[in-house]
């Protein structure tokens, strides 16, 4: 058992932290968010140069030989700096699918993704599917050697910046069946793809993506066209672990920022940080943040275990971090008082990001149920 980071991981953390400090201050971020593009492709190129996009991939796949822990390190720093660039979508998720694709797919897509030339977004959610990864109305029907895709994907984060989409679609079976699901690589400029782009409340950009008989070749399918769900679940659990790391970074900053504010802010002639009722709130925020770090380590370190263990670990982490993020975010605003309500203070932006993190890839209720169902399965199996 070992909780140390490698030298490479520490180097990634330090250089990324420096870059964020130098070029990702709060005011710059606000300007970027308000700009027409909504992100900085140049920043993405710098991330590529730093090796961040290559960090979690094996050397054979053109990476630096790291894995999920490297992604965790990156995402925690992203959380601290409220970085909006689509590392989760393109590297963790896009890369997560592509590295399990064919050699041809790796050459065609993974290499340019790692180089920062292709950017991926994950089109999986649908207007009526909520958090069920198998609840798909989008269809992919056989068309000669290839496929035709039709449907509507909801809140595809990072899609406005993406060149390519990873799309989940039903290739057979009924709407919520676990079988009959495929994963497809679709160029965003393919004929029949239309998007409606918009900002999200936490400073990112997303799209509603419509597919109208979009033709893709046989080489667009990642893995088994009818048995894609296990792969989707695996990559989504990896995304959850990375997202938890981002939440940890955001929580740590929100918590320390609040403590700092309580030191400066005076009421009744004394810093409000001297009031025990606020002190204990801040201690609880600290404990929530610390335990979130513990849960993120746990989930990240269990990604390669058997399916049930991995799923339970990811869901447990997502539950704990959803609850912690809400607690830390809400109390951070409360202790900042009226100032916490203003757009000008950074704390509100951490609160907003933490709020949305809970709803990404399943919220507390969803994952508490998933964890419970998996436990019940174990009980029933044991009883048989």
């Amino acid at each position, binding site marked *: *058992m*070992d*909780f*140390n*980071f490698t030298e490479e991981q520490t180097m990634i953390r330090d250089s990324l932290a420096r870059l964020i400090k130098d070029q990702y201050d709060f005011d710059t971020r606000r300007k970027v968010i308000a700009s027409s593009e909504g992100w900085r492709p140049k920043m993405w190129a710098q991330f590529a140069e730093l090796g961040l996009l290559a960090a979690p991939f094996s050397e054979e796949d053109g990476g630096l030989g790291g894995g999920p*822990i490297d992604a965790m390190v990156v995402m925690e720093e992203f959380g601290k700096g409220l970085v909006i660039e689509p590392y989760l979508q393109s590297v963790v998720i896009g890369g997560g699918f592509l590295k399990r694709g064919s050699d041809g797919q790796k050459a065609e897509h993974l290499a340019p993704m790692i180089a920062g030339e292709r950017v991926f977004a994950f089109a999986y959610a649908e207007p009526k599917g909520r958090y069920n990864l198998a609840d798909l109305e989008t269809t992919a029907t056989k068309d000669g050697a290839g496929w035709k895709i039709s449907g509507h994907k909801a809140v595809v984060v990072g899609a406005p910046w993406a060149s390519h989409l990873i799309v989940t679609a039903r290739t057979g079976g009924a709407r919520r069946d676990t079988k009959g699901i495929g994963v497809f690589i679709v160029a965003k400029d393919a004929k029949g793809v239309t998007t409606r782009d918009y900002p999200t409340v936490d400073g990112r950009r997303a799209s509603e993506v419509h597919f109208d008989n979009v033709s893709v070749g046989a080489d667009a399918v990642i893995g088994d066209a009818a048995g894609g769900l296990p792969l989707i679940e695996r990559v989504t659990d990896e995304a959850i672990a990375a997202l938890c790391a981002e939440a940890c970074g955001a929580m740590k900053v929100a918590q320390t920022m609040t*403590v700092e504010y*309580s*030191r400066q802010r005076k009421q009744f002639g004394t810093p409000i*940080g*001297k009031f*025990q009722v606020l*002190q*204990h709130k*801040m*201690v*609880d925020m*600290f*404990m929530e943040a*610390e*335990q*979130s*770090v*513990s*849960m993120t*380590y*746990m989930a*990240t*370190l*269990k990604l390669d275990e058997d399916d049930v263990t991995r799923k339970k670990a990811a869901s*447990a982490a997502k*539950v*704990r971090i959803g609850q912690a993020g809400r607690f830390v975010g809400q109390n951070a605003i409360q202790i900042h008082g009226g100032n916490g309500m203003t757009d000008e203070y950074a704390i509100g932006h951490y609160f907003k990001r933490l709020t949305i993190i809970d709803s990404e890839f399943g919220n507390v209720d969803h994952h*508490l*149920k998933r*964890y*419970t169902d998996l*436990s*019940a399965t174990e*009980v029933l199996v044991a*009883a048989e």
Partner: protein
Amino acid sequence: MNLDFTPEETAFRDEVRAFIRENYPKELAGMGSREDLTREQFLAWHKILGKKGWSAPAWPKKYGGTGWTSTQRYIWSEENARVDALMPLPFGVSMVGPVIYTFGSEEQKAKHLPGILAGDVWWAQGYSEPGAGSDLASLKTTAVRDGDHYVINGQKTWTTLAQHADWGFFLCRTDPSAKSQEGISFILVDMKTPGIEVRPIRLIDGTHEVNETWLTDVRVPVENLVGKENEGWTYAKFLLAHERSGIAGVARSKRGVERLRSIASSETVDGTPLILNGDFSRKISQLEIDLTALEFTELRTLASEAQGKGPGPESSILKIKGTEIQQRLTELTLEAVGNYGAPYARGMEGHGVNDLGVGPEYSNFAADTYFNMRKTSIYGGSNEIQRNIITKMILGL
């Protein structure tokens, strides 16, 4: 970063598992959470471990510790919890022992450490007083120097299991003019010394677990002072930090969740196992998830301790969260047993045994244990005091 056991660690696990299986007293199986046992029962496993050299894994090797790594210690507590073993009581091994080997004289080390390791000498903790609970430093018991003796007068309370104690460690005021935290000394007292009277306090679960300890003109040789006079508060705080790090009780709570799951599999609601009832099963899930968060927080703390940092204020997190979970576990266990939470096992014939013939065996003591565990957020520095410690030591407010 990884969670893997090395081949050596796996071999170690097999070794301790086999040792526990072959040596743990059969008659004490499943009694690790009981408070109403005899002195011999409490000490039985401790004595066996003492002979093996395993009674104080956290101690430095030169004082009789095992020299185990933090991972080995984790394995050790997991393996003991698997059989719900009755572990050595904390008063000697986790509390006064580390104070003696860290701050005590060579004579004190030679005199007291072997008895603690062997489980021959039972220690009691003389900290709290009727007027000094969370505000421990306001204690009033005095020790006045008289030649080569201290004369101790005062009243201690909540002295856990002092009815069995051979020795006690007492916080006494040696300089009444100093402000509250200064002027306190840490003194070892033979409980057979004339002038000590131990009176039982009955708790809400019906057990005699704690006592009042009255000290009237108790004469104690000055060589029983630990460290320097008037610096006892430093040692007291050191002890509390040590006490807190073991207080999380992760392995035992994991075992408790397993037990809760098994109870909830036997109990039925409208013909369906309680464990498949959505409302209840989600409570178990939440508990288990929070316990996982605690477990990994403890593992991180152990790992940083292994790198040479002693138990710091972070151990307060373990105390707060560990005790919250222990309490929630007993609360859910009582909920799970339903109607059979009400019969009072200690008021029944044959209450020393597990199966009283009223309701399922697992329902006995469920309420008592829940009542008893309310103590955990109060003792060892209440959870509110722990929050004050974190406020000061970590948040810097």
